[in-house]
């Protein structure tokens, strides 16, 4: 929690003198990941608005709930009239709006980007504290932790299959990301880590092919319209080399934000990793 919002919460608590009623009653979220957290954690009826992206089933895990809440497009002029008593924003998105809201004295809680499941769980706890719904937060954290603990432990590192995340425009995800932590927990080695790619980086198609990962991980959501960005994913050189058995599709919403779907992603990866056919090594 930032100092400012902590101070605001403390002030509210003091002024009302009854700790329980300090929970914010008019919550607005400015970020897709914050949308999921407030819609899962906040007390019913207290969420006044979430982003328009939250209603998109291709991007959001809570699109059904988001249908019942008004949406906005992240402009300050949409947020201010809602008179929020707590705004949740991403640390890197809608910067101008955040600055403006702060200037108007509206408490803003900034959400970082979790780099691991542990960080994601911590985020759920701090957000639920800010929302005044600690019990819900603790419940969600416990659910995720139990389901994770039930997954089989990964095998010896040298026997682990190598996976590569391949995204539109030929980008991959490496060290220092939530996705990488999920791969590790599923018992997969990440090609991007071995290539020393941090976070989000370009992996040329030639390099990918030559590295021969055992598994390709692609976005699971349907491609929307046409784009050149997708062409590299459908390049004959790639489709010829990777049959469906060696490609796993994960909806990107599953592993973008803190929430229960992180476990679903680990589960799916783990399952596929175990069923992998023997690696087709090339004759050389």
């Amino acid at each position, binding site marked *: 929690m930032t100092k400012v919002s902590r101070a605001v919460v403390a002030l509210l608590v003091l002024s009302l003198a009854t700790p329980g009623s300090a929970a914010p009653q008019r919550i607005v979220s400015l970020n897709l990941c914050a949308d999921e957290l407030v819609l899962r954690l906040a007390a019913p009826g207290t969420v006044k608005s979430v982003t328009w992206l939250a209603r998109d089933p291709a991007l959001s895990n809570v699109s059904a709930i988001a249908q019942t809440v008004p949406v906005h497009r992240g402009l300050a002029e949409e947020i201010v009239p809602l008179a929020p008593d707590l705004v949740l924003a991403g640390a890197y998105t809608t910067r101008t709006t955040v600055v403006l809201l702060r200037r108007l004295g509206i408490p803003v809680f900034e959400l970082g980007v979790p780099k691991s499941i542990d960080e994601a769980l911590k985020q759920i706890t701090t957000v639920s504290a800010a929302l005044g719904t600690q019990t819900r937060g603790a419940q969600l954290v416990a659910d995720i932790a139990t389901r994770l603990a039930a997954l089989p432990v990964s095998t010896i590192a040298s026997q682990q299959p190598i996976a590569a995340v391949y995204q539109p425009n030929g980008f991959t995800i490496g060290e220092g990301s939530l996705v990488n932590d999920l791969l590790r927990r599923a018992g997969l080695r990440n090609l991007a880590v071995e290539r020393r790619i941090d976070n989000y980086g*370009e992996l040329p198609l030639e390099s990918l092919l030559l590295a021969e990962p055992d598994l390709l991980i692609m976005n699971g959501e349907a*491609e929307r319209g*046409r*784009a*050149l*960005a997708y062409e590299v994913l459908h390049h004959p050189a790639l489709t010829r*080399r990777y049959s469906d058995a060696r490609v796993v599709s994960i909806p990107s919403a599953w592993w973008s934000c803190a929430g229960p779907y992180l476990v679903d992603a680990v589960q799916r990866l783990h399952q596929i990793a175990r069923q992998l056919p023997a690696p087709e090594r*090339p004759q*050389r």
Partner: protein
Amino acid sequence: MSTNALPVLAAANTAPMRPALLLSVLGLVLMLLFVVSLGVGRAPLELAATIAQWMRGDSTLATLILIELRLPRTLLAALVGVSLGLAGAALQGLLRNPLAEPGIIGVSACAALGAVIAFYGGLSAMAPLALPLAGIAGALLAVVLLYALAGRESSTLTLILAGVAINAFAGAATALVLNIAPNPFAVTEIVFWMMGSVADRSMNHIQIAAPLMIVGWALLGTSGRALDALTLGEDTAASLGVRLATLRLMLVLGTALAVGSGVAVTGAVGFVGLVAPHLLRPLVGYQPSRLLIASALAGGVLVLAADVAIRLVTIGPELKLGVVTALIGAPFFLVLVMRLRRETI
């Protein structure tokens, strides 16, 4: 490689080279670059061994990279380069204007607009041939418009200004279409359409673009004799038996086919059609018929060399082709403008 060849060509500046010699030098450089281009990439590849494997019919990872990635890329760079070099020389003859070039006068930008509409609108997903055809339609529109505006006896200035207007319009319309496109990546892809690239293209792109492109080459390539006559003026050409209407139609259609189908699969690559013919014009004795083939080969050399250079610079994401050709071509253009100014004073 081409830079090595340039001083040699420049040394022969005053006297025209023997046509056979010039064409063989250019052809040799083109072939050499073709091989170099097959050997250069992010993945280390033993070219000779891989080619040997491929000849034996072995299917390995290396042959996959060579045949499915490097070969289409190399072929496409050469094809588009040849198209642009040829179209530049032909347009300069048709418009009798030394600064005419598909990129500068807006033909490429309009071709890109056509391709963008077909691609993001989903038309090319249903019928792949729609992509080059839409590019050709865009290019055709631009050439016809330019000829109507600045085709006959008009100044260089008129042509260039018309080009500025057409470029601005096509660029804005392209941005508009990309903004409306449902895909979130579309907006960022304007760079591809305006600057051009052959990275990660496949044989499918060659299959759809090459046949139409080659029809365009044939139309442009056979217009040489008539273009020679045209340098003497329209009336003289007509009196020499040149059917002007047919010639115009051939050049307009040929340019649209060659440039439009190329831009539809690689985006617009600028200045190639300017640099290639101007470097060679003195060497062919200022004779359009001899310039056409030479300029086509030089265009291929230029784009291939640019694409090899791009892959040798490995810092950050790959550069677009148009960045390299514009870095060479734009100063070249400026020099030409200044020389023209001196001549008119």
